[in-house]
């Protein structure tokens, strides 16, 4: 796909993609059960609850119990999807996920909304920026951070088809929706090359994918050819795609709505260090908690915006020998 072909179809919340996805999935997969810790509204679960009320388990504000219950539902043959904000989905219940789910290889789908800074006004307590790291360190855990509404919907359905624990991360605000409506361009574990380029590779996940597309368009105006890769699946990582692109461009910028310690950027750096060391610049928060504000205000303050990706790309290119 060429950069100019990537256009905004509409603006929708990625979490709404989850709500639509789970509703469609439930129609075809009767083992799907949805649990929530009092956040059905945030996950747009209305249609699911209305039609599949018998497969909806309200857990109240009991995240630890919800994860345990999900593990237990698998012992009864179900495919449980748990829903709460990303901070309550991970940090609060890490031991439950580690012991009852991951170590026990349970087929639990941990679905987390309101991830990262773009949660906005609620501030640092709710803006987890460590969740990708926490989850990707768990043996056997698949970690997916889709880039838009259509892709979140596709991922919600696709994770039912793989056995084992999954962390599916998405967000709160309306965001440019630009991937295929039918989700056919999403494959778990397969990097999505949105635009091919030769000077630098931009690898991003989640909301930062669109910012990277915008950055690539800006760079193109200055005659810089950027390859844009949507690395929606952070684990298992498509190392082949990373090596292929870095071999071609010789420089990389990683962009994530997450701490640069332990996130997507570090995963890419590990592949680069072991296979094709190239200059790398990180876009992400740097060892800090968040704060209150509008999503765009916060993304700008912490450098997670288009101008900073453009600058990082130029810097990475300048560091090539």
């Amino acid at each position, binding site marked *: 796909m060429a950069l100019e072909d990537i256009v905004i179809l509409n603006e929708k919340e990625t979490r709404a993609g989850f709500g639509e996805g789970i509703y469609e999935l439930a129609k075809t997969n009767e083992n799907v*059960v949805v649990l929530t810790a009092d956040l059905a509204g945030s996950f747009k679960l209305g249609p699911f609850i209305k039609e599949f009320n*018998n*497969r909806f*388990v309200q*857990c*109240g504000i*009991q995240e*630890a*119990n919800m*994860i*345990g*219950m*999900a*593990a*237990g*539902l*698998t*012992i*009864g*043959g*179900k495919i*449980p999807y748990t829903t709460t904000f990303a901070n309550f989905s991970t940090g609060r219940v890490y*031991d*439950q996920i*580690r*012991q*009852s789910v991951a*170590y*026990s*290889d349970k087929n639990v789908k941990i679905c987390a909304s309101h991830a990262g800074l773009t949660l906005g006004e609620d501030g640092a307590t709710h803006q987890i920026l460590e969740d990708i790291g926490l989850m990707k360190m768990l043996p056997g855990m698949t970690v997916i951070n889709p880039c838009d509404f259509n892709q979140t919907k596709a991922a919600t359905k696709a994770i039912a088809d793989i056995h084992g624990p999954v962390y599916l991360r998405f967000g709160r605000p309306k965001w440019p929706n630009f991937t295929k409506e039918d989700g056919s361009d999403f494959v778990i574990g397969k990097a999505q090359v949105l635009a091919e380029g030769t000077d630098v590779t931009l690898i991003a996940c989640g909301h930062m994918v669109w910012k990277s597309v915008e950055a690539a368009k800006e760079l193109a105006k200055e005659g810089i050819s950027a390859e844009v890769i949507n690395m929606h699946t952070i684990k298992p990582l498509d190392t082949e795609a990373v090596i292929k692109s870095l071999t071609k461009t010789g420089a990389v910028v990683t962009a994530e709505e997450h701490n640069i310690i332990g996130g997507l950027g570090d995963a890419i750096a590990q592949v680069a260090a072991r296979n094709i060391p190239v200059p790398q610049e990180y876009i992400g928060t740097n060892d800090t908690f968040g704060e209150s504000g509008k999503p765009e205000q916060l993304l700008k303050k912490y450098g997670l915006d288009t101008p900073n990706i453009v600058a990082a790309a130029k810097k990475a290119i300048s560091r090539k020998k």
Partner: protein
Amino acid sequence: MTNEQLKLKSIEYRQKLLTCIFNCKAGHTGGSLSSVDILNVLYNEILNVSPETFSSPIRDRYIQSKGHCVEVLFVVLADMGFFPESDLLTMNQYQSHYIGHPTRKVKGVEQNTGALGHGLPICVGTAIAAKLDDQDYKVFTLLGDGEIAEGANWEAAMAASHYKLDNLCAIIDNNKLQITSTNREVMNSDPLDAKFESFGWAVREVDGNDVGALKVLMQSLPFEKDKPSLIIAHTKKGKGISFMEDVLKWHHGVPSAAEYEQAMAELEAAKAVILEEQVASLVNE
């Protein structure tokens, strides 16, 4: 089984688990001994679980939340025929599946456990799955009395009652000691009955080392329609071995050769008493 047969079985399990612990020089001796009679009655009288039916969707589920007392579980599962008893000679050794906490790599184990406070939430989920499928299998868990301090238990207790899970039975091995001291001193959980009753559970108390009483009680499950059942099983830590009973150091203590021999001798003597009683009752008839 008759009560006498169950009593003999408990003695056999105690001998076997002590042998495991003595051989591998590690284990949770006191808590395994206190819960022997509970697992004996569960597996021999109550659960419809066997190696042949273990993959059946309608089997009863037992999830041992107090995972550290794995020795008793492995000994009972071996006796049920899930794996050869000789496998237990590898217990706690390098590359053995028979590790210090329950793992699904061992046949007959439903769930990896070990971190405390995980079993009850899991059982709530499984009991809900049974209700969703309109199946009448039962879900059991064994909790330590010290473990009750973990907050997740109380989340699960609330949810079990909310969802009217009368297919769920939790058993507390109430041996009144934990690693540091008595429960009362470390973190008092009394009164357990009133706490669980106030959470909407049907609660019964029993001598948890009396196989006959345990059997009668468990056969009467569920205690009340639409309520989860709790059995507070009053037990002795280190039950069956005179010098281990109610002695803190046997939480994780490993017997010396002399202690092991004495323990086995005490159990042999207990067995002889039961057999003599059996003979006497036959003569009287």
